[in-house]
């Protein structure tokens, strides 16, 4: 891998894209086999993988808009990474299409006979019906794609023109963009995951899903930066100081995720209303208990201690290890949210879980990397870049 230090373009983007593409295509081919052998398992596995990668893309969108809105300078050197991550959202829109064919396999409420006999679900029909589900899913991706197209196009435009207008423009878009993001990501979480169990509800669910997704996106950004560092790219530009700040952000959102998860669990446990506790009982009174415990220790306690110290946040190697771990836990989280509907008695891992993750993930990484390498890897013309390059924690 090589970089032209004048233009900050990668003259040789390396093999990563090719490897990811091959893994992706193989994964998808194997997943098609999965579809023919076990249709329901396929759709559940596919849903988990789809939500996992989409939530990373959404986290990238949030990171970029937050960066613009807060007028942040330290994160300028990371902007192209987060922009590439968010630019996968239109691609994820394509990956949503197979999902629409699996509505019957996934969502209990899409069965007419169930809706006819279940009084509670009948009351929810204005929301829980197939047509509206499809309209909403299409709507989310249209909104996300428009936001990412605009923000990415303007950002790239800045490389060739000097203009203050661009900065003002993307701030003007990011502000209402945040509102759209809040509404759409919440309802996407309700639609894709919460309605797997159509009786159950929780007002914090949308925020919970957002927090986990942002956590995964930070991990993904750390890994992208450290991968380049190992290849000798952007070593001087993305310094330990930036990793330290990413580490703080990772740590902060880890605690915030735990706060959301605890709020949800604790209030439901305490009030002990059967129609709410049933959801947690499904994840506790059987073999799912092991995954629930893994969530407490693996998604919070262990990474909390592992990222607590200053030294941990300033070690690129350690931060990368923890990012891998958190991404793994993110997958466990989504698996834990979705799968108990299918496997009621305990987790049953399937090869389709792996193939769909690799399939969508390979294409995701390939596309993300392609977007990243086809433009300068730093926003070279941004007036804030200098400050970001010189940034020091203290």
């Amino acid at each position: 891998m090589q970089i032209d230090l004048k233009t900050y373009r990668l003259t040789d983007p390396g093999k990563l894209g090719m490897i990811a593409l091959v893994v992706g295509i193989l994964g998808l081919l194997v997943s098609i086999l999965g579809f023919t052998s076990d249709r329901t398992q396929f759709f559940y596995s596919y849903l988990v993988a789809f939500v996992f990668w989409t939530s990373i893309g959404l986290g990238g969108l949030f990171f970029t808009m937050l960066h613009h809105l807060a007028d942040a300078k330290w994160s300028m050197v990371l902007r192209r990474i987060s922009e590439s991550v968010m630019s996968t959202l239109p691609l994820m829109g394509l990956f949503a299409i197979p999902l629409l064919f699996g509505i019957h396999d996934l969502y209990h409420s899409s069965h007419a006979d169930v809706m006819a006999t279940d009084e509670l679900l009948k009351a929810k029909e204005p929301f829980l019906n197939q047509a509206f589900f499809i309209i909403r899913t299409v709507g989310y991706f249209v909104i996300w794609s428009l936001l990412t197209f605009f923000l990415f196009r303007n950002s790239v435009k800045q490389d060739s023109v000097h203009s203050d207008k661009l900065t003002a423009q993307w701030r003007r878009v990011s502000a209402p963009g945040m509102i759209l993001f809040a509404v759409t990501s919440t309802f996407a979480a309700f639609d894709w995951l919460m309605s797997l169990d159509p009786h159950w509800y929780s007002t914090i669910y949308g925020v919970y899903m957002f927090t986990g997704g942002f956590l995964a996106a930070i991990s993904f950004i750390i890994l992208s930066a450290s991968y380049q560092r190992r290849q000798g790219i952007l070593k001087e530009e993305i310094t330990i100081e930036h990793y330290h700040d990413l580490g703080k952000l990772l740590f902060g959102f880890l605690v915030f995720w735990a706060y959301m998860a605890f709020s949800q669990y604790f209030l439901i446990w305490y009030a002990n209303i059967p129609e709410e506790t049933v959801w947690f009982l499904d994840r506790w009174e059987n073999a799912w208990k092991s995954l629930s415990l893994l969530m407490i220790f693996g998604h919070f306690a262990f990474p909390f201690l592992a990222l607590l110290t200053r030294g941990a946040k300033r070690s690129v190697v350690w931060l990368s290890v923890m990012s891998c771990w958190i991404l793994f836990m993110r997958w466990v989280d989504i698996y834990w949210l979705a799968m108990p509907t299918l496997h009621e008695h305990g987790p049953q891992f399937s090869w389709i879980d792996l193939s769909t993750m690799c399939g969508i993930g390979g294409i995701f990484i390939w596309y993300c990397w392609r977007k990243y390498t086809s433009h300068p890897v730093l926003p070279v013309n941004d007036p804030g870049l200098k400050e970001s390059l010189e940034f020091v924690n203290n």
Partner: protein
Amino acid sequence: MSSATEHHDPNCLVTGNPTFESITESVSCIPESRTPLAWKIMFSISASLALGLFCLIGYLFWEGVGVWGLNNPVGWGWAIVNFVFWVGIGHAGTLISAILFLLRQRWRTAINRFAEGMTIFAVICALIFPTIHVGRAWVIHWTLPIPNQMGVWPNFRSPLLWDSFAVGTYFICSFLFWYVGLIPDLATLRDRAKTRIRKIIYGLFSLGWRGGNRQWRHYELTYLILAGISTPLVLSVHSIVSTDFATAQVPGWHTTIFPPYFVAGAIFSGFAMVMTLSLIARKVFNLTHIITKKVLERMNMIMLLTGMMVGYAYSMEFFIAWYSGNIYEQFAFVNRAFGPYAWAYWIMISCNVLVPQIFWFKKLRNHLVVMFIASIFINIGMWFERFVIVVTLARDFLPAAWDYYSPTWHDIGLLIGSFGLFFTLFLLFMRFLPIVAMSEVKGILPQADPHKSGEHHG
């Protein structure tokens, strides 16, 4: 703290090109000058109201909580409304002093001292209400786990007990944080003191501060650690307060978004109060060059943000109430919006969700009169938010028990009196302590940046 390497243009934070000396002068002269007449007038009004508060509390102890407008479904009434309101106000202070510090938001230096002071006074006001609400305030120490010969312990499962821990911890930490921040400035006042008594008192409280290099090093480390400790408190305290409601099975109270929703609301209301107070203070004490419009504008942006978070929570509650299919849950919300308290609900929505929308416009968020009026509206709206949550309980599961809750003169008096106490404490603070963190403001001056030395000022 002293960040030499951040390259903000500090001129946008402090205007009028002040020097270290002029900052000291303009802040220190407030407690050193003669007591202004306006202060005397304001103090006598608020101190009388505070006195009224204590008289009303005395009357309450004599008569019992029957003097309030409580009825059977509404067992908490205004006391809990006021408690949550005042605790919420405090949160902006901690957010500004701790979280904005950790986020390197250096514009906070203009308002942090003030906001921290406000936190402490608001928490004092807040603590009064649960204390008097227990009915037998003389045994309030029973809320603490003190070993006793009867072997009686507080009920650790009760969120009301967690409140006393959470708010108690919050008070202690906020107070320490505020005091540690004050030390260098108290030393400045001591060194400038012209009378012996001032010298002794400020000297006592500045703990022998000499401003040496080692002292600054320790001070900055302490400050950072206290900021780290206070940061989770911003979230935990109001989360615990929200569990007072959310752990119950009552429709409209039991919902999982309550903890973050309460925290966002608390920060929102607190910023509104900081705004109200700082607009008055910068005018009265001529601090317009330190509390600049830039600072005020950013506060308005935070209010816009947190106002929208509260709006998000309102709409989630409403949507999920419908989505749950639970008729009691649905009724609770329809009743809020269209029942006998619809007027309060729509005051809440208008003040908390609609009013902050004006801050989308740069002109309006830089307009002093507009932001002053908006901050007052937000304060009102946030009080009504708690009112709506507490009082719409008047229609619970049993229609036979339905009633309309109205406050008595005593309830109203307590609320007004708590404002009196708050402003009394605040005015005393303004009179005797440096209301702007001088040492921190100096840190954001251009001449504090070693990379710029030699360019000007020296």
